[in-house]
């Protein structure tokens, strides 16, 4: 019986890898409580995403298609998901802690009178209860929480759950009847979406992340960060200070309230290592810091440090890495 519901994350026509991470979480929960998971997706037309979704080992793939659902308005999505959860008697509802997940799931939890754990990093099972581990205080503490309500709502941190590998067996796909928009939709209107431009992989998916801080001094100078990232096929990140200074779009912010990353290699350039930034990258496997200030706190979390002017060290690094390729 399927008692866990995964809400898929779709962006720009793609099922995001974070969906596969949420599926890994769901299959683990299923092995604890006994049962299986289904995957639900909402959008205008999901025919392009169905092949991906149907190979994630789900009991069922549930599709809700209607014009405007791509906008992912919480006011529109919540009653649709709520209906599916109630009809299917789902016990656990999970989505990646993407901006959509963070926006929609608390409102959903309220509709279901359910408790919710945000940004879950680990799950275990003890005495008939699921224990969720989640970060607090910018990742300086973890708390273990239980949700005593009938339905448990969770968002999961992508970097802590390996993405579920596609299976050969296809799940049955079911199209549901979408209820009409609720009254509150008369009071919210979606205007537009301005996509941030990046040719590189998404920050949470990247194997290598090169981040720049205020030390870059200008948006123009971020070119050397991009060039280095490009060499590795990696992603570009930034500190809040660099975003606030207008050097780069907010979508690139790594930190407590920005993107959380855990790549194989994280290169921190011209950034001091503020607590809220470190919160977003300290799970990286190897951390390199380049900063001219030897007192910068980033050196306390870095595996390798170079105390130098970034405008000299980074071009040198680019040359050295090129030699290896």
């Amino acid at each position: 019986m399927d008692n866990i519901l995964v809400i898929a994350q779709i962006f720009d026509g793609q099922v995001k890898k974070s969906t596969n991470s949420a599926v890994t979480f769901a299959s683990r929960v299923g092995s604890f409580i006994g049962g299986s998971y289904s995957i639900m997706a909402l959008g205008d037309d999901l025919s392009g995403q169905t092949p991906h979704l149907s190979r994630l080992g789900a009991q069922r793939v549930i599709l809700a298609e209607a014009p405007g659902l791509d906008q992912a308005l919480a006011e529109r999505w919540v009653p649709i998901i709520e209906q599916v959860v109630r009809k299917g008697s789902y016990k656990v509802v999970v989505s990646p802690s993407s901006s959509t997940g963070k926006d929609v799931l608390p409102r959903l939890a309220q509709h279901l009178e359910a408790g919710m754990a945000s940004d879950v990093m680990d799950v275990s099972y003890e005495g008939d209860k699921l224990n969720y581990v989640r970060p607090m205080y910018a990742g300086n503490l973890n708390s273990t929480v239980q949700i005593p309500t009938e339905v448990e709502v969770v968002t999961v941190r992508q970097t802590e759950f390996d993405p579920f590998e596609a299976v050969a067996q296809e799940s049955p796909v079911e199209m549901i009847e979408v209820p009409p928009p609720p009254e509150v939709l008369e009071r919210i209107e979606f205007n537009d979406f301005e996509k941030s431009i990046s040719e590189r992989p998404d920050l949470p998916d990247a194997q290598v992340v090169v981040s720049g801080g205020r030390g870059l001094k200008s948006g123009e100078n971020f070119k050397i960060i991009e060039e280095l990232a490009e060499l590795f096929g990696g992603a570009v990140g930034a500190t809040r200070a660099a975003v606030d200074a207008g050097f780069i779009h907010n979508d690139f912010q790594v930190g407590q309230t920005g993107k959380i990353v855990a790549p194989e290699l994280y290169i921190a350039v011209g950034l001091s290592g503020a607590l809220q930034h470190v919160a977003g990258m300290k799970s990286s496997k190897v951390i390199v810091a380049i900063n001219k200030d030897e007192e910068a706190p980033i050196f306390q979390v870095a595996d390798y440090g170079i105390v130098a002017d970034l405008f000299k060290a980074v071009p040198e690094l680019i040359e050295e890495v090129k030699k290896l390729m």
Partner: protein
Amino acid sequence: MKIIVPMKRVPDPDNVDKVKISSDGKRVSSEGLDWKPNPFDEYAVEAALRLVKDSGTDKTTGEVIVASIGPEEATHQVRWCLAMGADRGILVLGDDHELDASVVARALKKLVEKESPDLVLMGKQAVDGDSNQTAQILAGMLGWPQATFAGRIETPADLSRATVTREVDGGCATVTVKFPAVISVDVRIVTPQAVNNNMIPPDKLNRDGPRYASLTGIMKAKKKPMDRYTLEDLGVDTTQRVKTISFSQPPARSGGVILDTVGELVQRLKEEARVL
């Protein structure tokens, strides 16, 4: 126009690495740390003031109420926000360990029923719990539209609605909400010209960051009204929907080595760390 800004007091965010866990792992202690308004809530206060106050002429087109749910000591942080320019305060007494996002949202709902604001404007998350839920839960409870993670807010001069630029994965989404509504703010809401009410000339709004309380602001704040309630007074159901079992310290990273040359770095990354 009436705006309620919910505000939580949190241990000094610049020193959160000094927050300690009790030996039984059941409690968190922030002894020795200063308490501050949650930064995102402080940004919401700033945004609310930019929406309805003209600091140049003292002209006001609305009322800003700062509401906190916390212990008696949270009075200080409410007063701080009043010193920034908010009109009055509300303190609902409650201990952190008896609150979760749903209890806080229920208390806020009672205040909304009492005050009938046009807008609840709040931080997207408190930097201690990092849950990022209360605004969305409250909007769901009230059946109001929600615009989360606001980096920009623009209203027409009649303040009937807001066009909100939301900072989301992959870019910026813009929505228009009709009041009453709940808006949660991200950090960029305090950049110059992030708030535009099409009334106060933008050059007067052209400041960066939340304003500091002036000396006269602090003096005035002492005389501003502050209502006090208990959760019981308000008839708030205090059933928690999330139970904290214990706290633990995540594995700490130990600092590594400082290398002399970029050549050595590349060699180490290749041979020792094996990431190249």
